[in-house]
Structures are given as C-alpha cells and as structure tokens.
C-alpha cells in the first residue's frame, strides 16, 4: 500500500512568488493534515481536513496560506505571496476515517521550501 506522498520534494522560490504544494494521502484516509517545521523550531499543526471539509484551520499562520481538498482526495497548500519566514519543511499526514482521536497519523516525506 502506498504511503502519503508529497510533491514537490523541494522548492526554491523568490520572495513574493507563489508556490503550491500537493499531498496525496493514503487511499481511503478521510483525515488529512498539514504541518510545517520552520527552521530550528517544532513541527506545528496548520490544518485538518475531513474529506473535503476543513475541520480545524487554527494553525494557519495568515491569509497568505490557502489549503484546498476538492473531492476529498488530494490536497494543495498554496502560499501567495511567499515571504522569507515561510521557509521550512511542510509535512502532510493522513489517518483513517472516523472521529477516533487516538487514530495514528501517517506522514509524508515533506516538501522543503526555501524562500529567497
């Protein structure tokens, strides 16, 4: 069974440009999460989808970040316009359907974003 995949693996852009990150969850997983690790800091939650609906977006830093999950399958995270402080690793995770809080989240390899 394929794990969580993310594209691209790396992205280098200039300040002010737009970048779109993609996440494909494990097949059948309704829950999809975005996290990021800014340089030298903890991995921080960004948002959580249940199918195509945003369940919790309390971690989104500002309105330059837009996440979508049309059709409840893959998700995209767009940063527009990118700023220097957005540099870091963006992780996606998925877990099985259902409201069980203890459900294990499986993570993708991350996208390394560098804003110059």
């Amino acid at each position, binding site marked *: 069974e394929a794990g969580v995949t993310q594209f691209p*693996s790396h992205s280098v852009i200039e300040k002010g440009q737009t970048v779109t990150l993609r996440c494909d969850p494990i097949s059948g997983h309704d829950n999809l999460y975005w*996290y990021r690790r800014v340089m030298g800091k*903890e*991995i921080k939650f960004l948002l959580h989808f249940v199918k195509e609906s945003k369940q*919790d977006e309390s971690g989104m830093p500002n309105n330059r970040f837009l996440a979508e999950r049309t059709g409840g399958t893959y998700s995209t995270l767009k940063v527009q316009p990118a700023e220097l402080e957005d540099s870091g690793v963006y*992780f996606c995770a998925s877990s099985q359907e259902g409201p069980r*809080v203890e459900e*294990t989240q499986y*993570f993708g390899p991350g996208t390394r974003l560098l804003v110059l």
Partner: protein
Amino acid sequence: AQKVTQAQTEISVVEKEDVTLDCVYETRDTTYYLFWYKQPPSGELVFLIRRNSFDEQNEISGRYSWNFQKSTSSFNFTITASQVVDSAVYFCALKGNYGQNFVFGPGTRLSVLP
C-alpha cells in the same frame, strides 16, 4: 496548554551502545495519546509507537523499548545495541482527547557512529 519537551538536542553513541531518548509532556487532559516518530535522512516521519494514557504497560519491540511513567509525565524511548541505521531525528508527540492534531517535541538528533 499542551507541551512536549525533548531536552536532548543531539546524542552521539558508538554502535552497539544502548541509548535512551527522553520525552516529558504536559497536558490537562485526563485521556491523551503519546507517539514516537523517526525521521531518517530521507525526510519522512516514520511512525514507531502509540501509547494511550490509560495503559501504562511498557512495550518492547525488538531493540526498541518504551517506558511510560504517568507519575513523572515521561515517555522515554530506549534503543538497545544501537546500529548505524538508527541514526535519525526522533520526535515525541502528544495528542489530547479533544483534538486531532499533534503537539510535537523539538526532536532529538541521534547519531550512531560505526
């Protein structure tokens, strides 16, 4: 507020040594869940273990073992007879009873030298 502390930023050991990675957590939830993930050089976060707060039984899986102590709010991870392939960053994480998102510790970078 929930918090996870991993006081060891980096650890270096020689192959075949045992090593313990510390994790201390804070939460007001009476039911919560603790996790360990491994991040090898390839970058992905690999799930290692989940422990429920109501189950304090320690667990052993091959060379890995976990010691959960509610009295000290700790969930330490021990690797016995370490190998070079164990070199990675290890994250401890906490999930409360009312939220689906994790609170991660800062990670401990383990280097196992041949």
